[in-house]
């Protein structure tokens, strides 16, 4: 295995689980202690976004804007003009959902280092239902020039990603989930914005995951191994900019790609991979995720099964893809 330093217990039933927003909360606190220019703003969702952790330590550097997401990011843009490094937090459905234009104009075009935290992304939001299950955020953020897009795989990585974003000097988006998810990385695992990581080496197919879906790919790879299929698992926490080198190296080797995201496949992570490969290394791609429909109310675990976002509900489609589509290796 590579030097990623996977959690050796990642596949056990009692693997440690933590919501990656908790890691964000820790990371923002650490970033705030390291740099007094860091400020935080929230639109009436401090506890569920975990920005409350920063607020409790640095109340003078926290700004409550109320349920006003347009104001959330534009006030943040102004604070950046005054020399601060603002983190803004709300649910992804509202930010960037509601305030995408203000992000485009006052943060991206205006080039201010505001960090957008999109909490409660994906269907794992659960009973609140489709209105709150933001699935389009990856697509609408990666298409903005001058925006970095990160989807951490677990809570430990979310902490590192937050700290990295705090010092990158650029507009950035970090997507977080509501629910506890298994921790597959360790404190010693690397994280760098713009880098993808080989978690498991293989030769028959490249399984590319982003955010918390990478974990399901790890489980799928184990299941495939028992069937004699050697799957390579690549974790791609930075969706923009993509680590083209690592991704292409894997695809050159396997000639067959599956992507997974808790988001619309249209315009999302899988689309970014398909775009890259079409231009640089045409290869068959199976994008797994949400297929042009909204979520709905249910428990997170029920929804994950219902929308085929668990290893056991995804494996059939992955296996069918591998059986139907030969490896395409023209010697790139």
């Amino acid at each position, binding site marked *: 295995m590579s030097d990623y330093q996977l959690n050796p217990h990642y596949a056990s039933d009692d693997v440690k689980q933590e919501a990656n927003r908790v890691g964000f909360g820790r990371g923002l606190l650490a970033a705030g202690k390291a740099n007094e220019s860091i400020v935080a703003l929230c639109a009436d969702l401090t506890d569920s976004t975990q920005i409350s952790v920063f607020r409790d330590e640095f109340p*003078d550097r926290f700004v409550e804007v109320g349920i006003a997401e347009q*104001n959330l990011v534009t006030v943040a843009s102004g604070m950046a003009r005054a020399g601060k490094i603002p983190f803004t937090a709300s649910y992804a459905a509202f930010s960037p959902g509601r305030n995408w234009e203000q992000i485009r104009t006052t943060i991206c075009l*205006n080039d201010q280092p505001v960090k957008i935290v999109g909490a409660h992304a994906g269907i794992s939001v659960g009973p609140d239902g489709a209105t709150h299950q933001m699935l389009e955020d990856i697509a609408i953020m990666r298409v903005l020039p001058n925006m970095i897009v990160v989807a951490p795989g677990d809570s430990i990585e979310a902490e590192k990603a937050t700290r990295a974003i705090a010092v990158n000097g650029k507009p950035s988006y970090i997507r977080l989930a509501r629910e506890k998810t298994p921790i597959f990385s360790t404190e010693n695992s690397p994280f760098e914005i713009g880098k993808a990581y080989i978690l498991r080496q293989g030769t028959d197919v490249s399984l590319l995951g982003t955010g918390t879906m990478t974990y399901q790919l790890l489980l799928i790879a184990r299941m495939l191994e028992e069937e004699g299929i050697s799957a390579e698992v690549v974790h791609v926490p930075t969706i923009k900019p993509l680590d083209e080198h690592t991704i292409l190296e894997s695809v050159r080797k396997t000639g067959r790609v599956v992507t997974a995201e808790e988001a619309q496949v249209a315009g999302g992570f899988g689309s970014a991979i398909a775009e890259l490969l079409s231009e640089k290394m045409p290869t068959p791609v199976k994008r797994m995720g949400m297929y042009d429909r909204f979520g709905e109310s249910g428990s997170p675990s029920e929804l994950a099964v219902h929308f085929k976002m668990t290893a056991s509900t995804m494996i059939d489609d992955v296996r069918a893809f591998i059986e139907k589509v030969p490896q395409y290796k023209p010697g790139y």
Partner: protein
Amino acid sequence: MSGTLTIHQLQHKANVVREDIIKMLLAAGSGHAAGPLGMAEIVTTLYLDIMNIRPSQPNWKERDFFFLSNGHTIPVQYAAMAEAGYFPKEELLTLRQLGSRLQGHPERTKLPGLENTSGPLGSGLSQACGVAYTLQHIDRELQRHVYVITGDGELNEGNIWEAAMFAGKYKLSQLCLFIDRNNIQIDGNTEDVMPLESLAAKWQSFGWHVQEIDGHNVESIQDAASMARAITEKPSVIIAHTIPGKGVPYMEYDYKWHGGAPNSEQAKEALRKIRTLDGKITGEHE
């Protein structure tokens, strides 16, 4: 800066800015006429008298801030900035051209001296609030002021009222908003499209100190800004009543000149009117 120009001289400078606006729009072949012409006294007085700025040091650490929220009126700000010495006046004629620092709607990164990027309406007040909040509540730089201009049609945008509530809650007393109350927007007069009155009552209820002035009277502009600086427990709004297209009789009061540049015949007539103050000064060169 403050006190070096008389009221009469500032009024004259405002008319020079008007001429520059017409010349810019003619050279560009597109842009917005009515708003910029109406705002000439306000923006000129801010840049040449009211604001504590150093044009040769656009990022001077002690400067006052100016945010233009109704970014389509940028020709008036470019003209005032050139008059103040931020860049040579010849550059004004590059407005909207490929490669120009003077973009059709202002982009902060393109031109030193701009504090924000605007065009889509409703965000400038919030950005001004972000600066004012930082100065007052975090960095405690209480001597610096944040001036922002919005249009009145722009007040249709919800983002504006989010900012109004925010400024009221946080008592952003270093914030001074000028509303260019010219009563026009693209589809017609504001009170026909989406009525705003009673505008003063609205701002008062949001916790702002409200003044209403003749937006073409330099002394009134100075006095209102001075009062705003003296109000220390609330943000200030100055509802500045202006005539859209002021200075060019065939444009005045007409919402159809909100967007649109004069052709060369119209521009020639406009310049003549501005220079002669609509025929009051005779014997002027064309």
